[in-house]
């Protein structure tokens, strides 16, 4: 259903809501297009005229500095006009419904909505109700999906490893609450990665983990052994209160990525993290700043990937 909502009848990307069900052809096209946006970011004049005159509304019903900023930079580098709405502090507090908010912004001649929402499925709901010329890009919804993060992670892996077909990838940490992990798993599987591992304590794994086509590991040492890519997930501090975990210190001891634990991965392994990092909780500073870390390039690539997604959905109505 999402796939149909996301693609035009002739198979072009109409909205980006989730990576689940998107064909490898589309994922690869996004990564290839992003590749062509990389040199634009390296120029002195970092702009192309593609979305000149288009109005992109950043609808953030949940706080996020990095994601909102990179979407804003991406839209501006495409020459779009960007309007940032921090909805957490505005109309919905006065009782307006989500669809009324969207209808009002559509009346202001919006061309694209970038949506971050605490409720899973909110971007889908908006996509079903917008006018044919308006595109929706999911910037993270509940525990469901964070497709542009998943895509920038794929871009990063492809950049450093050349492809997916011989890779062993470990996703470590709070998979249960992570929309990022879900998007990564869908993308890796679709792009032909033969071994995706999730490495986490039982309390931080979703119940349906067995149906996701991944190998489950409950020990860090075996979980990242011989891996080409180690993706650390952020431990969301608020989870501590839910009795899912004893303490941050305890978590670091068993699940924090230290230089010593990293030795079990391949010598040329890359370490990724979607940010924001908790140093000394899920990742040691020596790893975060070390030679295996590609965490900052991930951020740079994220801009090119978001430019690719926005230009593809904006052109799909043509």
């Amino acid at each position: 259903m999402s796939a149909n909502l996301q693609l035009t009848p002739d198979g072009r990307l109409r909205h980006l809501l989730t990576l689940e069900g998107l064909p490898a052809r589309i994922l690869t096209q996004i990564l290839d297009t992003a590749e062509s946006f990389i040199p634009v970011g390296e120029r002195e004049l970092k702009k192309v005229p593609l979305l000149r005159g288009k109005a992109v509304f950043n609808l953030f019903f949940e706080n996020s500095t990095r994601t909102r900023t990179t979407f804003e930079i991406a839209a501006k580098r495409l020459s779009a006009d960007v309007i940032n709405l921090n909805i957490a502090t505005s109309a919905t507090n006065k009782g307006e419904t989500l669809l009324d908010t969207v209808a009002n912004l559509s009346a202001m001649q919006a061309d694209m909505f970038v949506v971050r929402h605490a409720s899973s499925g909110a971007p889908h709901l908006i996509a079903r109700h917008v006018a044919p010329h308006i595109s929706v890009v999911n910037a993270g919804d509940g525990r469901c999906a964070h497709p542009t993060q998943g895509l920038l992670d794929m871009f990063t892996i492809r950049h450093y490893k050349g492809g997916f077909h011989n890779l062993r990838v470990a996703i470590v940490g709070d998979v249960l609450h992570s929309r990022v992990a879900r998007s990564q798993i869908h993308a890796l599987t679709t792009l032909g990665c033969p071994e995706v591992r999730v490495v986490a304590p039982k309390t931080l794994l979703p119940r349906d983990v067995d149906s996701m086509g991944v190998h489950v590991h409950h020990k860090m040492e075996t979980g990242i052994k011989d891996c080409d890519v180690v993706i650390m997930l952020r431990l969301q501090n608020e989870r501590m209160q839910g009795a899912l975990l004893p303490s941050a210190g305890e978590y670091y001891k068993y699940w924090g990525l230290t230089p010593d634990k990293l030795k079990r991965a391949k010598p040329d392994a890359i370490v990724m993290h979607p940010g924001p990092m908790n140093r000394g909780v899920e990742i040691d500073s020596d790893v975060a700043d070390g030679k295996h870390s590609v965490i900052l390039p991930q951020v740079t690539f994220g801009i090119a990937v978001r430019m690719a997604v926005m230009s593809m959905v904006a052109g799909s109505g043509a």
Partner: protein
Amino acid sequence: MNIDNPNQLIDRLVAQIAPLMQDDCAFVGIHSGGVWVMEALAERLGRDLPTGTLDISFYRDDFSRIGLHPEVKPSQIPFDVENRHVLLVDDVLYTGRTVRAAMNLLFDYGRPASIRLAVLVDRGGRELPICADFAGARLELAPGQHVALLRDDAGELHLSLNQGAA
């Protein structure tokens, strides 16, 4: 005019361009056919001048009508455009819209001293005030006719002329 042999047309271009080459020149090809022609020109002219490639997909004037091209290649201009004499190279000159987009893209890298245009085939049918400074062949084709440069697996260039569906 016989356009069967692209190599002859490239020879003709080389003869026109060679006397004008200076140290502050650079070659820039437009993807994909223009890059092939540019590489052939640069090789035959034998001058060690900087080269670059442009993909105009992000600068097309029909984006809102046809969307983004599914296969975009990165543009690479590994030299300072500022004050360079740029020889812009494409395979076929038709409406002039590609050249317009390429010039806009080039200016986003800097202000060249000059831009001159070399094309393998000028087929007529311009929709913009753009003309080729150098052309391997100049034809007047009907709108339904289609000329395209192809490169086979061995790297050999071929020109195909189709009457199209009239």
